């Protein structure tokens, strides 16, 4: 598997950047000619991961969100969304559907969305150091 194209993006953890992140990543992936459904799946998964950096990782503080997108020669997209925020104590538990540490109106379904819309989801996290979510999807493209 060889990388054929790559992009990097660093964003302030402001909620207004949620839409910029998902739209710009999808524009970059457009060269693979994804279907409408594939685009919308990636958009939704990215939106969840970026929102988690803003809501959970940095909370009231402002920090950086580091995004890299790599396109491979077998039509796989790998997206890494990383923060240097509070980290996750128990990743397995955090990924369970409906689990949320924030009351209010978080549905606790962010990871469930990522897992059902992408082929692979990997989460690495360290308390007080940060979290890295890797999302992977094979793009079949339009006929």
């Amino acid at each position, binding site marked *: 598997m060889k990388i054929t194209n790559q992009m990097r993006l660093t964003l302030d953890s402001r*909620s207004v950047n*949620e839409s910029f992140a998902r739209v710009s990543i999808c524009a970059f992936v457009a060269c693979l000619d994804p279907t409408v459904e594939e685009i919308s799946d990636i958009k939704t998964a990215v939106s969840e991961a970026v929102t988690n950096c803003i809501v959970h990782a940095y909370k009231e503080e402002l920090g950086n969100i580091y995004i890299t997108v790599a396109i491979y020669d077998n039509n796989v997209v790998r997206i890494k969304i990383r923060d240097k925020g509070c980290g996750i104590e128990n990743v397995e538990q955090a990924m369970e559907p409906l689990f949320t540490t924030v009351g209010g109106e978080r549905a606790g379904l962010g990871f469930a969305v990522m897992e059902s819309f992408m082929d692979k989801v990997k989460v690495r996290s360290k308390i007080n150091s940060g979290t890295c979510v890797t999302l992977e999807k094979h793009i079949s493209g339009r006929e």
Partner: protein
Amino acid sequence: MSVELKKDDKKIIAFLKGDIDHHTAAPIRSKIDEIISLQKPSLLIIDFNDVSFMDSSGIGLVLGRYRLMNELGGKVRVENLSKSVYKVMSLSGMDKLVEIKKREEEKNENN
């Protein structure tokens, strides 16, 4: 993102327009809740026809309004979901609490 509210007898219809994410959900929520606490309707219809994108924040938005309407003894119905919005919504198991209607064209496509 915008929300247009219409009152019709004991019914309120909220027409949502644009992208629903964590950033845009908060103002939609407060506008809908304001009219609910004022009018105390027996039915809240949330119309998704002009919603171009939704992540799990939209699920939270509907569940929150369901709880509020439930306290008032009222009901919530969610209408005109596109294929992609329905795909997100159906992960929540919310169809047990709230009536969910897809758009006409989607119904024909997937029976």
